[in-house]
């Protein structure tokens, strides 16, 4: 990985196996946007502006439920809090770059791209340290194109998919696949159980703050479970 071009190509190649998993998720995001009543332009703008599937689907769900904009924004930001964690962990590797790099690279940050890139930075290969941002750019570009294309197909199909197909059920199914790798140890399982339980019970609270309440109780429960664990 001695040149920029090689690093970019390696980034693209690294995400290719993940694209078949992204495409149906994007399709569902596009379909759901249309089913929620967004125009085609708004549905495409949502994917273009936010570029983060889980939060896009949460936004659509709240929109359908009639939540107020402030709660929708709060929920989107809560769902996307993990990006702050990714940002902190990538930060030292991006410090030699100017704004013209940092700002677009931030926009391209998604789970897959982050995970692949940080793993290679941690290997400590000096050649990768020099061109890692090209690797990240390659992966990010491939994921971005796939996401936008899949959303567009979903938007295009949207109007022709009957409600009886219950396609909204695809949303929790996608989240399940994202949940599994997050259950790394007992503390993370405690965080998930608490988050799920509180969100379910709090769904009856006014303002549709159930997801936010679930998320923050889950985080707190995870930290408590971790603290109680005897240190080896």
């Amino acid at each position, binding site marked *: 990985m001695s040149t920029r071009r090689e690093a970019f190509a390696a980034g693209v190649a690294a995400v290719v196996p993940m694209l078949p998993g992204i495409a149906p998720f994007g399709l569902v995001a596009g379909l759901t946007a249309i089913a929620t009543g967004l125009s085609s332009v708004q549905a495409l703008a949502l994917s273009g502006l*936010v570029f983060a599937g889980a939060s896009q689907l949460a936004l659509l769900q709240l929109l359908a439920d009639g939540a107020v904009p402030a709660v929708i924004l709060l929920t989107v930001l809560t769902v996307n809090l993990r990006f702050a964690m990714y940002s902190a962990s990538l930060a030292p590797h991006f410090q030699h770059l100017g704004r013209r790099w940092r700002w677009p690279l931030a926009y391209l940050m998604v789970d897959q791209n982050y995970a692949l890139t940080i793993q290679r930075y941690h290997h400590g290969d000096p050649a990768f340290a020099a061109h890692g941002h090209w690797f990240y750019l390659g992966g990010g570009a491939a994921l971005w194109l796939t996401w936008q294309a899949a959303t567009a197909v979903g938007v295009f199909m949207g109007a022709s998919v009957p409600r009886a197909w219950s396609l909204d059920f695809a949303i929790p199914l996608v989240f399940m696949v994202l949940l599994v790798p997050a259950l790394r140890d007992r503390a993370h399982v405690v965080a998930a159980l608490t988050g799920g339980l509180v969100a379910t019970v709090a769904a009856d609270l006014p303002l549709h703050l159930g*997801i936010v309440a*679930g998320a*923050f109780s889950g985080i707190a429960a995870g930290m408590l479970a971790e603290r109680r664990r005897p240190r080896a």
Partner: protein
Amino acid sequence: MSQATLWLTLLGAGLGTWLLRLSFIETWRWFAVPAWLERALRYVPAAVMAALVAPALLRNGGALDLSLDNLRLLAGLLAAAVAWFSRNVLLTLAAGMGALWLLQALA
């Protein structure tokens, strides 16, 4: 919600998400990430994803429903098993949607 408000919500969601992504990349040279925040952020994916999944399965028609009449719970449990072992979006979608359609046809 008016069209203008909807557009502002979409723009706000995009801008806010980008600012979260940029946050520490941009501020890293001025201050370190507090250790407690780093610990807290580690639990975000597990807590958030569970908060999104659980109500969609456990609630039916606006109330908690743990009965066998809750077809989404039954289909969801099957899909959860598939997600657990395969970690594959396509397989999980196929199992969950397939099970739901089958149960709806039988019900």
